[in-house]
């Protein structure tokens, strides 16, 4: 049924031509407003006329427009935001939020997969093992990182470093951002499925707290392979799905271009998943998405991580493991079986969770 991560047509540049300033299809009005502001600024400086009042009005209008657009994103538009070429990637989080990061490389078995980065650092005052999927910014980096699609050695490296963290009692923070595990010949030869399966099994019993945050794309098993832990949070406009919308459309409709409808059907947005009780928290993004204010979103993620780690560290190890097991063991029970008995999370609870994660982010960088 589920063909894993059909990558065709999935490269992040789709829907955005390189010369339009990174505006998505549905942001035309914002682009126009930005153009007008630029024009007025140009006129102002050449002719010496003061247009500042007009510019302020346009900018207010721009913010209002962004708020309007981003409070009503469709599932498919959310997917496009999650794949935006300027969206902050693992490297941004490492630079701005993890102090003294020391990368630890290699799976001690086959190689070093650049699409999964692992290493030690500090978030807030807490020592952590960071495990994250990286997509790369420049073309060269993207190729090195295989566009964020890990091979089996990536998952084996992640597990090896997690065991290392377990040995020294260092909590684990994972950043999920992948279109999916790589579907290639070498990946199959080296046991992609087995590598992911072992991670799922071992992560369920690793004796340190594990916090996972989906910062962009949560592409099926490839994402799950580093997401099994005590808490799973998502950025507001990230998505998490069992299959890419294109892949789903290709299977059900034999036509990958119906992806928008498939995205809707798959219920892959953070809001939907929180409602279904499948994730623990949604971390709000700044107006217009994470790519419009990197510092802001990194700060929100840092706050969430620090707070969650502090909570988890207060729990006794045996209870932590028992809760983790229960969390995954009962997955889906409330939405499938207990749909009538147990109340589903209401809007009020979503708001409450969002509130915990929010708190007005400061525009200053999280790390100096």
């Amino acid at each position, binding site marked *: *049924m*589920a*063909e*894993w*991560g*059909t*990558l*065709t047509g999935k490269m992040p540049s789709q829907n955005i031509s390189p010369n339009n300033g990174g505006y998505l299809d549905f942001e035309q009005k914002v682009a126009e407003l930005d153009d007008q502001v630029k024009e007025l600024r140009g006129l102002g400086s050449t002719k010496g006329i003061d247009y500042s009042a007009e510019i302020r009005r346009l900018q207010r209008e721009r913010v209002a427009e962004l708020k309007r657009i981003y409070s009503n994103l469709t599932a498919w538009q959310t997917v496009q935001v999650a794949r935006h070429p300027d969206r902050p990637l693992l490297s941004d989080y490492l630079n701005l939020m993890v102090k003294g990061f020391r990368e630890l490389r290699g799976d001690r078995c086959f190689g070093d997969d650049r699409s999964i980065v692992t290493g030690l650092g500090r978030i807030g005052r807490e020592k952590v093992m960071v495990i994250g999927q990286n997509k790369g910014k420049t073309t060269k980096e993207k190729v090195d990182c295989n566009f964020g699609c890990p091979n089996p050695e990536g998952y084996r490296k992640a597990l090896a470093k997690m065991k290392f963290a377990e040995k020294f009692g260092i909590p684990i923070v994972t950043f999920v951002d992948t279109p999916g*595990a790589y*579907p*290639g*010949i070498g*990946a*199959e*030869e080296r*046991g992609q*499925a*087995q590598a*992911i*399966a*072992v991670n*799922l*099994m071992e*992560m*369920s*019993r690793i004796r340190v707290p594990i916090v996972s945050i989906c910062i962009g794309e949560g592409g*099926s*098993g490839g994402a*799950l*392979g580093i*997401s*099994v832990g005590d808490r799973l949070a998502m950025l507001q406009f990230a998505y*998490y*799905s*069992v*299959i890419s919308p294109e892949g*789903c*459309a290709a*299977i*059900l*409709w034999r036509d990958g271009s*119906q992806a928008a*409808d498939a995205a809707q*059907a*798959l*219920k*892959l947005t953070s809001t939907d998943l929180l409602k*279904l009780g*499948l994730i623990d928290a949604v971390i709000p993004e700044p107006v217009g998405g994470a790519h419009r204010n990197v510092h802001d979103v990194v700060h929100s993620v840092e706050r969430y991580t620090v707070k969650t780690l502090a909570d988890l560290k207060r729990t006794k190890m045996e209870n932590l493991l028992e809760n*983790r*097991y229960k969390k*995954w*063991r009962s*997955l*889906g*029970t409330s*939405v*499938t*079986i207990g*749909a009538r008995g147990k109340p589903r999370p209401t809007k009020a609870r979503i708001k409450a969770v969002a509130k915990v994660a929010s708190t007005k982010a400061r525009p200053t960088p999280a790390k100096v």
Partner: protein
Amino acid sequence: MRCPACEHMLYKRTVEKNLTVCPECTHHFRIGAATRISYLVDDGSFQQILEDLTASDPLGFKFRGTTYKQRIKDDEKKSGSKEAMQIGKAFIKGRGVVLGVMEPNFLMGSMGYVVGEKLCAAVDKAIEESLPLVVVSCSGGARMHEGVVSLGQMAKTSAALAKFDEARGLFISVLTDPTTGGVTASFAMLGDITIAEPGALIGFAGPRTIAETIKVELPEGFQTAEFMLEHGFVDMIVHRKDLRSEIARLIDYCQK
């Protein structure tokens, strides 16, 4: 009927008598869960558990004209099974086991909430009664109609098997044609002993997906049971007629 592998014309009855294996080329045909159970266990010893657990529609999945609910109804009729997995207690050559068998004719044997829940229940039963667990996988992967609920079943089943591992239980995973996607990437690959049927398609990504992504023709025999054996991911390839005795023998070796 015609054998898809050697193209011999065969009598349906001869094939069925031969455990639905082509007598000419030993091509193993796909078989439903009920047939599989009848081939595998001692006559009449299968006692089903959680028989009435049926799929619900957590997402209200609707895509164009297709709804998940309709698909469930259609496949119930087609397969005569209410879900893509049956679990229960049984005897194999007199050895008590907890058995799970997947049903390929029900939404391609895909894993949704019910399959995950049944597998976990089988693990719990096996722990409770100190029995070996045998699971025959046959699946297209995670069931996309249940979205992240079905994706989560991968983690759920793996976590349950971690418990089973800690309880020192014996898990024999039998991979049949096809075992792909989220099922391979979770419980199917976590066996203490992994057995495959000859010629079975076993892999993570589907061959079509791989061919489309990397735009290269796939090598002969790619992702077959033999390929998996060669690359070290299965312990042995066993003919359908030997499966019963092989499982019984392995259980004997691992018995305390």
